[in-house]
C-alpha cells in the first residue's frame, strides 16, 4: 500500500511538473471563461437588436398623420392613443407597463391581462376614457384595477360571455391588489400569476373532457403537467421564489426575460457544452502511458519492484484526480466570471419539482451541481477511452485523435444510424448513452437525443460495460505486452 501511494505521488509529480499539463489546464480555464463571456453576450443581445438606432416616436407621429389623412374606422381613438403614447414616452416594444392600460383607456373591446396579453372579441367593453388615462399618469394602479374588475364583472353579467376567461383575468387583478403587487415594477410575480391562472384554466378544461382509448395516456400526462405547473406557480407565490431554474428551460426561451440574466442561465448552457470540455482531459489521458514509451522512461519505471498492474492503476488514479481537479477548477472559474458578469443576482434561485403533488425546492446551485456531476461521467468515460488507447497503442497521437473523434463524431454516427440507416441498435453504443444529462433531460444541439424507452438503468449498464472493456484494454496493453 505504501508503495502504491508512492506510485501515485510519483505520477502526480510527473504530471504537475510538465509544462504541457499546465498549458492544458490554463487553456481549459480560459476556454470556460470565454464560453461564459459568449453566453453572456448572446443573453444580452436581444435588447440591442430590438432597439438598434430607430426612433419609435417619430414613427408614431407618422402614424398619426396617416390616420388623420385616411380617417379609417376608429381613427380618432387611435390618434388619442398615439398622442398619449408620444406625450408620456410609452413604447410599444420594451414591455412598458402603461401600454396595456393605455389601450384599455383608448380602445376598450378586449379582456385584458396585466401582462399585456389580450383575448379578442369576447367582450364589448367601451374605452374607459380620459379619466382612466389620467389614473395611468398618476400611477394609481389600484384604482385602475378596481375599475377593470368592476367592468369585467358587469360585462359578464350582462352578456354571458365565456366566464372562464373573465374570471381568470379578474382573479389576477384581484390577486395583485390583495398582495400589493404593482404592475409598475416588472416583477417576476406577473409571469407567475399568469402562469398559475393559465394552468388552472388548463386543468379545468382538461378535466371537463373525457378521453378514452389511445389518447388517454397523453391526456392524463397533459393534465398532470398542468396540475404540476399550477402547484409550482402557487408554491412560488406562497414562498416568494422569484427565479426558478430547470435544465433545458433557458435555452428554449433564451430571449425570455430579465429574470434569466444570471449565472444560472450561463451555467445551464455550460453544462450542455461539458461533453466538449472532455477534450482537455483526453489530451492528458492520452499521454499518460504512451509518453513513457516514446521517451523510453518506461524502462526505469518498470525496473521497480512493483507489479505492472499497480503502476497502470496508479496512473489511472492520477487521471481520475486530474479529471476531478479539472472539472472543479473550470467550474469555479466559470462561476466566478459568470457571477461577476451578471452581478451575482438571483443567488436564491430554486429548482422546483412536484413529487406526488407536493412541491419540493432545491437550491439552484445544488441542482446544477447534480447535473454537473452527471456530465462529468461523460468526461470520465471518454478520458478512460483515451487512457486505454494510450496503453494499448503506446501512441498518444492516435489515442487522443480517436477519442476526440468519438466525442465530436459520436452524435453524427448516432444520427446516421438512427435516421439515415434507420436502425435501432445505435442505442447499445456508447454514443447514445454516455451523456446522462441528455438521457434524463433530452438531447440538445451538443449531444445525442435519448432513444424512445431508454432508461437510466440501461444507460448505466452500457456505460459500465464500456468501462470494463476500456479497463481490460488498458490492463492488457500495459501488463501483458513486452517493452
Amino acid at each position: 500500500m505504501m508503495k502504491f501511494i508512492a506510485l501515485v505521488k510519483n505520477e502526480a509529480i510527473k504530471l504537475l511538473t510538465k509544462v504541457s499539463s499546465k498549458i492544458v489546464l490554463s487553456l481549459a480555464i480560459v476556454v470556460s471563461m470565454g464560453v461564459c463571456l459568449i453566453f453572456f453576450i448572446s443573453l444580452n443581445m436581444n435588447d440591442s437588436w430590438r432597439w438598434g438606432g430607430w426612433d419609435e416616436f417619430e414613427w408614431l407621429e407618422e402614424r398619426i398623420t396617416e390616420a388623420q389623412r385616411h380617417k379609417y374606422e376608429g381613427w380618432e381613438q387611435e390618434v388619442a392613443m398615439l398622442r398619449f403614447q408620444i406625450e408620456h414616452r410609452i413604447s410599444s416594444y420594451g414591455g412598458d407597463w402603461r401600454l396595456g392600460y393605455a389601450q384599455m383607456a383608448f380602445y376598450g373591446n378586449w379582456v385584458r391581462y396585466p401582462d399585456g396579453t389580450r383575448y379578442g372579441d369576447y367582450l364589448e367593453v367601451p374605452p374607459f376614457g380620459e379619466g382612466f388615462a389620467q389614473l395611468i399618469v398618476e400611477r394609481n394602479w389600484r384604482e385602475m384595477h378596481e375599475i377593470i374588475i368592476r367592468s369585467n364583472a358587469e360585462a359578464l353579467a350582462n352578456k354571458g360571455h365565456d366566464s372562464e376567461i373573465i374570471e381568470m383575468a379578474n382573479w389576477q387583478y384581484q390577486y395583485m391588489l390583495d398582495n400589493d403587487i404593482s404592475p409598475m415594477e416588472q416583477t417576476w410575480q406577473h409571469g407567475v400569476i399568469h402562469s398559475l391562472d393559465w394552468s388552472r384554466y388548463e386543468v379545468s378544461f382538461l378535466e371537463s373532457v373525457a378521453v378514452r382509448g389511445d389518447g388517454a395516456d397523453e391526456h392524463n400526462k397533459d393534465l398532470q403537467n398542468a396540475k404540476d405547473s399550477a402547484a409550482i406557480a402557487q408554491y412560488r407565490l406562497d414562498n416568494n421564489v422569484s427565479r426558478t431554474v430547470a435544465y433545458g428551460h433557458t435555452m428554449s426561451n433564451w430571449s425570455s426575460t430579465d429574470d434569466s440574466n444570471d449565472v444560472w442561465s450561463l451555467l445551464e448552457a455550460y453544462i450542455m457544452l461539458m461533453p466538449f470540455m472532455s477534450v482537455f482531459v483526453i489530451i492528458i489521458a492520452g499521454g499518460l502511458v504512451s509518453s513513457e514509451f516514446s521517451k523510453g522512461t518506461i524502462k526505469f519505471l518498470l525496473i521497480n519492484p512493483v507489479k505492472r498492474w499497480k503502476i497502470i492503476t496508479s496512473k489511472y488514479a492520477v487521471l481520475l484526480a486530474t479529471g476531478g481537479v479539472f472539472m472543479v477548477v473550470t467550474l469555479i472559474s466559470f462561476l466566478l466570471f459568470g457571477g461577476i458578469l451578471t452581478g451575482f443576482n438571483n443567488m436564491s434561485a430554486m429548482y422546483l419539482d412536484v413529487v406526488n403533488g407536493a412541491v419540493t425546492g432545491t437550491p439552484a446551485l445544488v441542482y446544477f451541481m447534480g447535473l454537473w456531476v452527471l456530465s462529468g461521467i461523460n468526461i470520465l468515460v471518454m478520458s478512460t477511452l483515451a487512457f486505454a488507447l494510450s496503453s494499448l497503442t503506446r501512441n498518444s497521437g492516435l489515442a487522443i485523435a480517436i477519442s476526440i473523434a468519438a466525442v465530436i463524431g459520436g452524435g453524427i454516427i448516432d444520427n446516421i444510424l438512427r435516421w439515415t440507416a434507420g436502425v435501432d441498435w445505435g442505442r447499445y453504443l456508447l454514443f447514445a448513452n454516455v451523456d446522462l444529462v441528455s438521457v434524463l433531460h433530452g438531447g440538445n444541439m451538443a449531444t445525442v437525443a435519448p432513444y424512445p424507452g431508454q432508461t437510466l438503468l440501461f444507460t448505466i449498464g452500457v456505460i459500465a460495460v464500456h468501462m470494463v472493456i476500456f479497463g481490460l484494454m488498458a490492463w492488457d496493453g500495459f501488463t501483458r505486452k513486452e517493452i
Partner: protein
Amino acid sequence: MNQAVLQIRGLNKHFGNRHVLKNVSFETYAGEVFGFLGPNGAGKTTTIKIAVGHLFYDEGEVLINGFDLNKNFERALESVGGIVENPELYGHMTGMQNLRQYARIRGVGQERIDEVVRLVGMENRVKEKLKRYSLGMRQRIGLAMALLNRPKLLILDEPTNGLDPAGIRELRDILKKLAHEEKVGVMVSSHLMSEMELMCDRVGIISNGVLIDVKTVEDLIASVRSPFMTYRIKTDNAQAAMETLHDINLTPGNKTVVGTDIIELKIEAERAEEFIKAITQRIVMGGYVLFSVTPVEEMSLEDAFIELTKKAGHYIEGGQII
C-alpha cells in the same frame, strides 16, 4: 564461492519465429564483476531485459537473489538495480527529482540519495533539468538511480556508452569497489573485449544467442592468445642460413624463408627463449650475419575475440539461423 545473485538456467527466447536466446545458462555471484560479452545483436540486451522483467521468456528459469522472477516478481526485483540500454529519464524534471521518483518507491531517504549523487560525482549538476544533461551525465544519474537501494545485483547494459575515457575509468573503479568491497554482484554487458579485460573478474561470451563460454578473464585472455609467437630473423642470406637450422625441430611450429634475407619462425610461446638462443647461435656460427630478431605483432585481443565468436559457427543471414 559467494552466493549466486543471478541464476539463469536454460533460457530460451523467440521474437516471432526468430530464436534469439538458445538455452542460455549462467550465474553472477555476489562480490564479482561479471562481464557479458558479445557482438551487436548477440542477445545481451534481450537477456538483461528478461532479467529485469521487461521481456517475458519462453523457457527456462531466472532467479534473482534466490527468488524466481515469474513467481515472486516484487521480491526478486527488490534486490536489483540497473540500466537497460540508454538511461532515459524524465527530461522535464531535475536529476534530483528523477532520483526522488525512484527513491519513493524503494523507500530510500534523502541521505542515501545525496550519497549516491556524490558517488557518481554529480553533486554540482543534480539540480538541473535532465534534458540539459549530456549522455555521460545521464549515465551517471542512471547509475546513481541503480545504486539507490543498495542492490545485491547491479545490471548495466553497455554502461560505457557516452562516457569519456576518464569517465570510463571512474566507472570501472566504482564497479570494482562495489563488487570487491561491498559484495555486490555486478553484471556488465559490452561488445568490447578490451573493456571487459580491465573491468571484469569473469566473462560470459554470447554470440547469436548462444552462450559460448564462461571463463575468468585470465583464462579468456590465455585462450584467445595464440600459443605460438612469430619471429622474423634478418640475415644476409636467408636461404643458406636456413640450411643451418635443418635439424632444429620447432614442431608443431614451423620455419619459412620470406624473401632473400628474412626467415620467419613460428615458435611455441612457452619455449621461445630456448629456441631463439639455439637458432641465433646456429646462424652466427654458420658464418652468416645476424641483423635482427623481431617479434611480429600478435593478433589483437579484439581480433581474437571476433575469431572466437565466429568459431561458434552461428550466423544470422536475413533472419535465418544457419
